[in-house]
């Protein structure tokens, strides 16, 4: 298949491209950005004037819920939602049931993802058996079966000795570790950020110290074990400055923040709205300001959707009893664009943080629109308005604070490995 994507504003942070031009695809690869290669006759030309074309987005942490929680979502439903939201690859978290701690679960998900024929699934294996934090997972086997990294997700490892051994073992397997900096004991009872809002609402708080202690602990162990580490979902200003300092000192760690933590703060919990019950918790205005600045200055590499689809019952509860998380894929592009519009950072930075940066963190070969790179592409219309409703959300999870709001920005075309998986253009 020869494909010509014509006339869009092409933004590729990897090559510094930002101009209106054409992208030519042959088979599974990009063959040219700009003028048509000699003798190229497209089988299909899609006119994309007024729209933005970028490298396909890569989600660093999506809870696909299958196997085990199919009543919340399935690999098929979420891979389709990812594809229609501009994501060409999604990293699935290992907190399924059974946990992704052995090769057979990976094989099962692979088959499911294959039949879904939508976004590509990348596997995050478990760091410890059953994510229990006691026994190391079979990391070598997980790596051999195709896991791109290992993580204990947000199941905090209580025993620092186990964590230290797990990181050392992952290092000897040559695996990247995704670290969610959580201190089990300070996090255990908390349901939201500890501060004026949690005090007013009488909701048990998670102090900022929780994240700071965990980041310090993890940085120390990363330095000692030499493991390649990525810090997931940082939420506080002080955590950012710790990562900055470590990087300045030469520690090659990367980091991401969840889009929700760039958008919202603890005050948004308002009167116990369970849609703002998140992990990590929404912190204060000052934290949000620092998180945004860190993306702008590239002190933090990536923005993550932290997609957590839930069934309706999981949120139909008093705040503390409700399940944490936002179903974020469908609204990702308009929410990201709203941050650009507010001046948090520019569009090129935003795109880099969801394509090039996650690609580099995972050590993949895409994330750019260069000749011979995989044809993973996302096109969105930045001005198209749409109303978020249960019907317009492709994800099986309808748990989003944007429900019934009108948003601006919609993905119209997603190409994965040269194949059109989503297209609403004529």
């Amino acid at each position, binding site marked *: 298949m020869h494909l010509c994507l014509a006339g869009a504003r092409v933004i590729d942070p990897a090559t510094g491209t930002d101009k209106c031009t054409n992208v030519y695809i042959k088979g599974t690869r990009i063959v040219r950005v700009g003028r048509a290669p000699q003798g190229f006759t497209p089988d299909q030309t899609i006119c994309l004037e007024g729209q933005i074309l970028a490298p396909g987005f890569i989600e660093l942490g999506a809870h696909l819920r299958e196997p085990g929680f199919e009543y919340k979502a399935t690999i098929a439903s979420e891979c389709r939602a990812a594809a229609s939201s501009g994501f060409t690859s999604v990293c699935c978290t290992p907190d399924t049931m059974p946990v992704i701690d052995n090769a057979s679960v990976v094989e099962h998900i692979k088959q499911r993802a294959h039949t879904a024929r939508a976004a590509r699934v990348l596997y995050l294996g478990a760091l410890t058996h059953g994510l229990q934090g006691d026994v190391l997972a079979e990391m070598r086997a997980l790596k051999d079966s195709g896991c791109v990294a290992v993580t204990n997700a947000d199941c905090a490892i209580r025993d620092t000795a186990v964590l230290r051994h797990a990181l050392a073992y992952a290092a000897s397997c040559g695996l990247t570790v995704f670290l969610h900096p959580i201190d089990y004991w300070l996090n255990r009872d908390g349901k939201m950020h500890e501060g004026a809002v949690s005090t007013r609402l009488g909701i048990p708080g998670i102090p900022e110290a929780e994240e700071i202690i965990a980041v310090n602990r993890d940085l120390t162990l990363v330095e000692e074990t030499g493991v390649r580490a990525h810090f997931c979902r940082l939420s506080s200003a002080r955590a950012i400055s710790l990562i900055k300092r470590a990087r300045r000192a030469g520690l090659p760690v990367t980091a991401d923040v969840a889009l929700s933590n760039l958008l919202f703060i603890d005050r948004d919990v308002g009167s116990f709205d369970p849609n703002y019950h998140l992990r990590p918790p929404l912190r204060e205005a000052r934290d949000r300001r620092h998180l945004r600045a860190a993306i702008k200055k590239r002190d933090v590499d990536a923005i993550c959707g932290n997609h957590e689809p839930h069934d309706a019952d999981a949120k139909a509860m008093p705040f*503390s009893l409700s399940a944490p998380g936002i179903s974020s894929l469908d609204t990702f592009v308009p929410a990201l664009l709203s941050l650009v519009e507010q001046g948090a950072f520019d569009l090129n930075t935003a795109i880099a943080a969801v394509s090039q940066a996650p690609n580099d963190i995972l050590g993949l070969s895409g994330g750019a629109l260069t000749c011979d790179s995989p044809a993973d592409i996302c096109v969105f219309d930045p001005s198209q308005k749409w109303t978020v409703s249960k019907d317009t959300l492709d994800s099986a999870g309808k748990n989003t604070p944007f429900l019934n709001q009108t948003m601006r920005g919609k993905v119209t075309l997603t190409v994965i490995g040269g194949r059109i998986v989503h297209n609403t253009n004529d």
Partner: protein
Amino acid sequence: MNQLDEQERLKHFLTIEGLSRALLTEVLDTAERFSPVGERAVKNVPLLRGKTVVNLFFEPSTRTRTTFELAAKRLSADIINLNIAASATTKGESLTDTLRTLEAMQCDMFVVRHQNSGAAAFIAKKVAPHISVINAGDGRYQHPTQAMLDMFTIRRVKQNFNDLIVAIVGDITHSRVARSEIQALSTLGVAEIRVVGPKTLIPDKIEALGAQVFNDIETGIAGADVVIMLRLQQERMNSPLLPSAQEYFQSYGLTEQRLKLADKNAIVMHPGPINRGIEIDSAVADGPQSVILNQVVHGIAVRMAVMSLVIGAHAAGTN
């Protein structure tokens, strides 16, 4: 939190947060009118005749549940007590399903106690529009009728709130009573609200609610007109929060000697049940400055007032 109807009258009674001074005063004035009912030979009025009130308690309670029951009976309502902790939810029924079932029984009012903050508001949002919800304590968030009966008690003795210094002593972190009281005192115009306790029992940034923090009781109650002692829950003693009940009493227990530091006309309050010798000395609890038993009596009148106000709002709306 939506607890008012279009005419800005109480539809539910979920929280003190956001209620106006006029509305709080209306509750107190209404309670004042109900107060003599309990002293009569025939202790009821027909205001809520034909109405069904359900005491929906997800957490055990004796005194609050009993006073609500008595208040409903004095208003001639039918009342059902449901102890959900030992009922349907332990069989796996969801909260929403429990509510649907009760609604189907044609109830008019739910009096709710729940262990989770925000639960009463959640229930108010879920129930059919003709049902009123009264919060009888949700998690650490609010216990608004307790706060109002305390305000009633203070007003009875002190007449007005303006120049008062009120000290709340004890476990502020886990106390829904303290949160409701701070907001009620602040709305009613109290000059100075203090919270007194060790740092382990004072929540972060409580100052934002309008309270000053004191970590020692001597300065905390100095010159106070009202001293409200909070109950120290059993599970907080010998915990990471406090070394022992004895040490707590030594540091924060209200003794006759310490009470002398307060204003000479100071009153001592306690939402009950009292831990004698832990947060309060018996000599103080039973002493001349204690109004603890008055609080219990006032509780019935205040709950009658709240019940009639929320139902009255509906009666007006449907006529």
